[in-house]
Structures are given as structure tokens and as C-alpha cells.
């Protein structure tokens, strides 16, 4: 019995190790080739570079206009996620505390947005009416809207767990609705708000269709589009493409490693009770 148990444990460790390796190999491939010189990287392989070509990165930043697109992405994802939390949590709060029939319906109506496909064609018209087409503000608004339904869903569940007595105490102390929300309730939302922020940040950072449709100048492009465009121009220089990719995924990997605790709790809170 003991023997089979140990054998099973060894097999499980090997299996997990192999799966992890499969996940890591493509990423390692990029790291290694991003440090090679152009001839060495002509075939993307695991042969280690002879010298570390760190100047790939400076070349890429300059040629790929990474600085500008990095700032664009930061603006789009950062601002959209921040506004999304503010508006979603306010909505979730009123919806969850005041469960009238209308609010119940509105909650489900907003949730439906998780499934709805975006109609890119008619959205052009709406973007024109609101004069947001080809503007950075337009992308921020659209990114925010795409993240609202899921954020409301997570925050609604979380607010349900905050005791209503707090509101009553606030009212007795003379808080108006705004004061009550911003001084008492909003600070309590921090764990869920961080999760929502990170998830919407990652989602919007990785999105590229909306800027592709609704921005006409490359100077407004986010990083994902810039890297794709760069790949189109420098298909043969895999060392540069790899370096570009590394710089593009670095911010998301950092956000992920710092916030993985929140990501996982947020993802599961929507799906599993407890």
C-alpha cells in the first residue's frame, strides 16, 4: 500500500511538472531569443545566446515606439478600470441595498452584458454622435463599459456581505447618501475593489479590437496593437520581435505576480460560494 502511494505521488509530481513545463516553454523561448543577435535568432530555438544582446530592448523601444504605446495602454486600462470600479460599485450598492422589483430587473439587465456581443458597426454611429470616435477618451469609455457588467456582478455579491447596520449607524450620525457611501461603504469594499481593478486592468490591457476599429492614428495605439504592427514589419528579426513581446507582457506579468491572490479570489467569488 505504502509503495503504491509513493509511486502515485511521484507520478503526480512528474505529471504536474510536465504540464508546467508546457506552459513555460513558449515563454522561455521568447526570453532566450529576445537576448540573441539577429543571425542567432533566425531559427527560434533553445540554443543559448553566445553574448547577451541587451541592446535589442533599446532598439525595440525606439523602433516600436513602445514608450508612447505603453503610456496609451496605461491610460486606457488604468483610467477605465478606476472609473469602472467607481460607477459599478455605486450601482451595485444601490441595487443590492434597495431590492425593489425594478432594481432586481436592472441588475439582471446589466448582467446580461456579460454575454452580449458588441455590435462594432452600429457602435460607429454612437461613437460619432457622442463625438468620441478617434479619441483616447472614447477608448477609455468603451473599455469601462465592457468591464461594467462583470464588475457589478462581483461587487454586488460582496456588498451583500456588508452589514446593513453600518448604513443605519451612518444615517443616525447624520450622513447623507453620498457621505454614507464614500466615507463608510466604499472603504469597506477594498478587497473586492482591488480584485475588480486587477481583472479589468488585465482584460483591457489585452484587448485590441476596439482600438483597431475606433482609433485611426498609430500614435494612439495601445501596446498590443503596437507589438502586432511591429511583428508585421520585422517578421524576420525574431530577436527584436521577442524583445518587443517581453516588454509588452512585462507589465501584465508584474501586475499578475503582485496581485495573483486577488485575481484568484475574484475569479472564484463569482463562481463558487464561500
Amino acid at each position, binding site marked *: 500500500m505504502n509503495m503504491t502511494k509513493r509511486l502515485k505521488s511521484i507520478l*503526480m*509530481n512528474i505529471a*504536474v511538472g510536465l*504540464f*508546467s513545463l508546457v*506552459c*513555460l516553454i*513558449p*515563454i522561455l*523561448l521568447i526570453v532566450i531569443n529576445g537576448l540573441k543577435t539577429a543571425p542567432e535568432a*533566425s531559427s*527560434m*530555438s533553445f540554443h543559448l545566446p553566445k553574448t547577451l544582446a541587451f541592446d535589442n530592448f533599446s532598439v525595440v523601444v525606439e523602433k516600436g515606439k513602445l514608450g508612447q504605446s505603453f503610456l496609451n495602454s496605461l491610460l486606457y486600462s488604468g483610467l477605465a478600470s478606476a472609473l469602472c470600479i467607481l460607477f*459599478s460599485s*455605486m*450601482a451595485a450598492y*444601490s441595487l443590492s*441595498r434597495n431590492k425593489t422589483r425594478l*432594481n432586481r430587473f*436592472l441588475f*439582471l439587465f*446589466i*448582467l*446580461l*452584458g*456579460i*454575454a*452580449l*456581443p*458588441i*455590435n462594432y*458597426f*452600429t457602435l460607429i454611429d*454612437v461613437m460619432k454622435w457622442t463625438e468620441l470616435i478617434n479619441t483616447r477618451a472614447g477608448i477609455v*469609455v*468603451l473599455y469601462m*463599459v*465592457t468591464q*461594467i457588467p462583470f464588475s457589478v456582478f462581483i461587487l454586488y455579491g460582496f456588498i*451583500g456581505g456588508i452589514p446593513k447596520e453600518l448604513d443605519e449607524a451612518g*444615517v443616525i450620525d447624520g450622513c447623507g*447618501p453620498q457621505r*454614507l457611501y464614500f466615507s463608510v461603504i466604499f472603504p469597506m469594499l477594498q478587497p473586492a475593489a482591488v480584485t475588480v481593478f486587477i481583472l479589468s486592468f488585465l482584460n483591457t490591457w*489585452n484587448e485590441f*479590437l476596439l482600438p483597431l476599429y475606433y482609433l485611426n492614428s498609430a500614435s494612439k495605439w495601445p501596446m*498590443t496593437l503596437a*507589438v*502586432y504592427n511591429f*511583428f508585421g514589419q520585422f517578421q524576420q528579426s*525574431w530577436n527584436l520581435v521577442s524583445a518587443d*513581446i517581453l516588454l509588452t*507582457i512585462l507589465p*501584465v506579468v508584474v501586475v*499578475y*505576480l503582485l496581485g495573483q491572490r486577488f485575481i*484568484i479570489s475574484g475569479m*472564484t467569488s463569482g*463562481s*463558487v*460560494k464561500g
Partner: protein
Amino acid sequence: MYPFYFIAVALGFYVVFAVVPSLMGLYYSLTDWSSFTREINFVGLDNFKTIFSKDENYMHGIQNTLVFTVSTIVLKTVFGLLLAVLVNKGIKFKNLHRVILFMPSIIPMLVVGIIFKSVFEPQYGLINEALRAVGLEQWTQHWLTDIRWAFKSIIAVDVWKGAGYIMVILLAGLQAVPHSYYEAADIDGAGAWMKFKQITLPLLMPSLTVTTVLNLLYGLKVFDTVYVLTNGGPGYATEVVYTQVFSQFTLGSYGVGTALITVLFIAMAALGYFAVRLMSREEQTG
């Protein structure tokens, strides 16, 4: 104390930028709207006839989308469940493995696509090189340009990227199963398979439902994986609904494009209705 204007801001943005375009789409799908003329004529169901006719390629795109959706649901669930069971307990460096296995989910699909274009490259790509290195020369393929392999390769990349996400959700489900159930089964002399089938699987059903809904909604909307790996090629072999929508957008024939999205809209609104019912039910009992 809970003013309506708290709801109104989020609701307003959502209605203007998500609901209104969808509803406008219902009307425009019945017109010959295009980017060439200002004139828009009502054409009835012509666009839908085009989409569902045998002479055009749209049915193929719809079919591919369904194949993609069903196969990624099955594969991601199988791998996600396997991974979740493996990293749940009894292995070394549990947390490290969890972090690594989830990693592909956070990398932009556009970037993943570029990486796999290199991995699948027939001459120098990692996969074919590896196959040659172990003497399996005959297994090497033109992964992305051979009609028989292109769509399978796309599905494989998508599963590579998405299985970790499913793992995380199922892992949380696994951890919610009380340990005492397994102890009781041990006393009754149940084997590992028996325990999995009789305890784990039934108790994991709510989580499995959620992952299936997520995979379903994702699969029907798939775009970037196909766009970056093959852009619908070779020929039209790997077109899906969204890549066809994108080509209509580029071509300027908005009427047909809108009709395509409307087909998707109706399917997803129906599915979404059930998904929302499901999610809000769980949230109510919890």
C-alpha cells in the same frame, strides 16, 4: 438612502454603448447599409438569406465557430479538471505550479499568437524541430497552412492559453468539498476512481456549470486566436463568425456584417438569459 442616480451612471453608459448599438443592429441588419453610400434601403431578410445560403461561405464560419466552441469546452474542462485535481494536494511546490499554470491566461492573445506562429513554423519551429530530433520526421506538419491541421492547431493554442483559467475556478470548487466525505468513503473501501465519480464530480457540478457557461460565451465570440494565427486561412478554412464580421467591416458592407452580429446577438441573448438566471440563483442561495 440608496439613490437611483447611483445606478444611473453605470446603467447610462451601459445602455448607450452596449444596448443601443445592439438594438440598432436589429434594424440595420434588415438594410443594405454600407460605407460607400449615405443611402440606406430596407431590404427585408436579404442579408440573412445571404448568410444562410449555401453559395456563400458564412455557414462554414458558423460551423467552425460551433466546432471551436464545443471542442474548447470539452478540452479545457478535461485539462482544467485534471490540473485542478493534480495541484489540489499531494504535490511539491503547489503554489509555484498554480502560478505557472495560470500564467498563459494573462498573456495577451495577440502575443500568444505571435509566439505560436514561431513555434508552429514548419522549417525552424520548435515543434517540428523537436519531432525531427526524436526521429519522428514523418509527424512534422505545416501546422498553420495545412487545411487538415490549421483549425486543430488554433484549438490547441486556445486550450493551452485557457486551461489554467478553468483550473483556478475548479480548484476553488474542489477545495470547498468537505474532507470528511472522502474519509467516510475510505472507510467504506472506495477506490480513487469511485471517490472521484461519486463525491468529487457531483459536488463540483456548480463549478463545472460556471466554467461551461464561461467557455461557451468565450467560444462563440472567438476572434483574436484565429485572427493572429491564420486570419481565416488557408483560403477560408478557419474562418469563424467574428473574423467574417471583421472582413465585412474592412470591406465596408455593414449590412451583412450587422446581420452576422445579430445572429450572434440572438443566440447569445438567449444563452445569456439562462446564464444570468443561473448565476443570480447561486448568488441568492449563497
